[in-house]
């Protein structure tokens, strides 16, 4: 219990949470770092797109897909991941989300190399090449993945928050899912139980307006997704998911409520997905004008302009950051290409934590 008390002190509510009110602190370094992380995520995703579509020629002349399987890009939603990362207490808080998990993982500090290597299926990947695009995990920081079954991870978020309450460690769980997931039974079951148990969870739908290729108005009987949590006796609000500061402010409010023992909060964090659902999706269901309009509210553009207008960053600094993150991402690709595949025998590893007298292979 001594450990719990120590943690409680560390995260006591009076401790300042960085920049929940949009006001610059410390000469803008924190803000520039956030902008840089958003740029890193964008460059990482766009580079991933290229890697996915360009097969590699092997020495014997045959072609190999660099990135196999499904791949769901996060471009356009960076403000959400960076907003949460801004208040996330590493090692104490927990984050869990669906399969669109590259951005959150990078925002929480995963190296682009571990992320890209996982996409390439390499042994150096964040999940040793056994998880892939949909299953990025980083236990040390409290990143509980990347889950491929729509809505299937929402009860896990309930469980993380339950454990935080049980251990009284002051942690908060950020449980994210796409708008498609709110039509799963797990969403309703988990929110109901979270409210009954008053666990410190922030449930948020990253509402990018379309579940795979089905627009919100065609998949949700209620278009205002914040209202979908009305039956569960918890605060529920819409949040501008393209505005980092709005995300930080909302999450701070919900986290503080959770830490005070008042239970979960629900947000519909409204944003836009610049790419298709997955790599095979040409987004024919979205009119060009809509996509063009959405680009005017590109979260990176909005944040850059805001920081520039406050004198916290210059265009030159932004360009330098762009060059830096681009080089970081290029290097991640080079490293991932050179990294080894897992040894074939390693396919039997990491199934069970214990050993048993007879264990089948």
């Amino acid at each position: 219990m001594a450990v719990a008390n120590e943690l409680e002190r560390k995260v006591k509510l009076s401790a300042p949470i960085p920049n929940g009110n949009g006001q610059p602190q410390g000469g803008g370094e924190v803000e520039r770092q956030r902008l840089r992380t958003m740029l890193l995520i964008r460059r990482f995703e766009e580079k991933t797109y290229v890697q996915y579509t360009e097969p590699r020629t092997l020495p014997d002349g045959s072609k190999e897909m660099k990135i196999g399987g499904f791949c769901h890009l996060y471009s356009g939603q960076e403000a959400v991941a960076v907003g949460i990362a801004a208040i996330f207490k590493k090692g104490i808080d927990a984050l869990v989300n669906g399969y669109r998990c590259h951005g959150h993982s990078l925002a929480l500090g995963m190296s682009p190399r571990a992320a890209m290597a996982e996409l390439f299926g390499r042994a150096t990947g964040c999940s040793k090449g056994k998880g892939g695009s949909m299953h990025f995990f980083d236990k040390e920081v409290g990143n509980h993945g990347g889950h491929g079954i729509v809505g299937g991870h929402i009860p896990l978020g309930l469980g993380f928050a339950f454990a935080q309450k049980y251990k009284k460690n002051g942690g908060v769980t950020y449980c994210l899912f796409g708008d498609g997931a709110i039509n799963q039974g797990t969403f309703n079951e988990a929110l109901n139980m979270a409210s009954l148990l008053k666990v410190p969870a922030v449930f948020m739908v990253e509402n990018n307006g379309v579940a795979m290729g089905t627009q919100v108005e065609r998949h949700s009987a209620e278009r205002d997704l914040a209202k979908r949590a009305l039956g569960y006796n918890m605060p529920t609000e819409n949040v501008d998911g393209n505005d980092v500061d709005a995300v930080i402010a909302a999450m701070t409010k919900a986290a503080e409520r959770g830490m005070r023992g008042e239970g979960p909060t629900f947000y519909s964090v409204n944003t836009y997905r610049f790419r298709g659902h997955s790599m095979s999706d040409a987004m024919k269901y979205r009119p060009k004008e809509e996509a063009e309009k959405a680009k005017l509210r590109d979260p990176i553009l909005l944040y850059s302009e805001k920081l520039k207008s406050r004198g916290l960053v210059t265009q030159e600094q932004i360009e330098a950051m762009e060059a830096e993150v681009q080089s970081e991402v290029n290097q991640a690709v080079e490293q991932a290409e050179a990294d080894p595949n897992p040894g074939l025998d390693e396919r039997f590893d990491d199934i069970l934590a214990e050993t048993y007298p007879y264990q089948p292979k």
Partner: protein
Amino acid sequence: MAVLQLREALRAAMTEEMDRDPNVFLLGEEVAEYNGAYKVSQGMLDKYGPGRVIDTPISEAAFSGLAVGAATMGLRPIVEFMSWSFTWVCIDQIVNNAANVRYMSGGQYKVPVVFRGGNGIAHQLGATHSHRMESVYARIPGLITVCPSTPAEAKGLLKSAIRCDDPVIFLESEKMLNEKGEVPDDTNFTIPLGVANVERQGKDVTILSYGRPLQRVVRPAVEALVNDHQIDVELIDLRTLRPLDLHTIVESVKKTGRCVIVDEDWGYAGMGSGILYKIQKPCFDYLDAPIEYVHSDEIPVPFNHYLEEAMMPSVDRIVSAVKDVCYR
């Protein structure tokens, strides 16, 4: 040694482990205020309070997933399902989450959770409440599947399951909860997971079984075979269905040259057919007869008492199968 009902043995296992480790907690439908739908958790709310004995809504997906999440955070949840039949609605949580998270994360997470509850055909509960889920779960890499056949086993295996760092599927039978047997009082008494028990040594034929059919029909059949037919049966209680103790099984079948598997599952792709696949190759050169599999009829479980009885393995069916493999 005390003589306990199987439900009391389960309760003893849970309370001893909750006393030992503050990270262990129990949750499920009616486990707290109601003292358990089948009174397995009677008195536990009073002893441990609502923070550790937790009533849930009828939301299997939410509370089984809660347990998986809590386990990855270092707690050791015990989930009580009133019936394993209800887990059809939360298999996603057990398979995609409990069993897969460790592997998908490259071994970063442990998932020390126990899912327990009544499994199999009970007493006139009809098709929806009578499922035998062992073949569903025992085929999943990443899960440990356990099935006790006596109160002592229930206690020893459940204590091991709670201490285990892997997710454990613990299959009881509500029809067995009243069964009494001698159970060690020792709080350190455990039965290792993954090890079968040679319950009776014999030289003519090996019978493999587990759980309630072992208790209900196999033991009486063995008595009849030994006493009335002079067939010296070697009886193996499998105890753990995954990982299967193939070593003990194969050594026995090599010795006797004959094997009969008995369970209450459906035969096609049932638990026994999986075991049969595992042993036919290592035992082929030693077998004097094809392996027999006595299982339930391949029908939904009927409500009518006589039909329900008729669909299940019986003493007669087992005796007949054993005589077949012994060419008697």
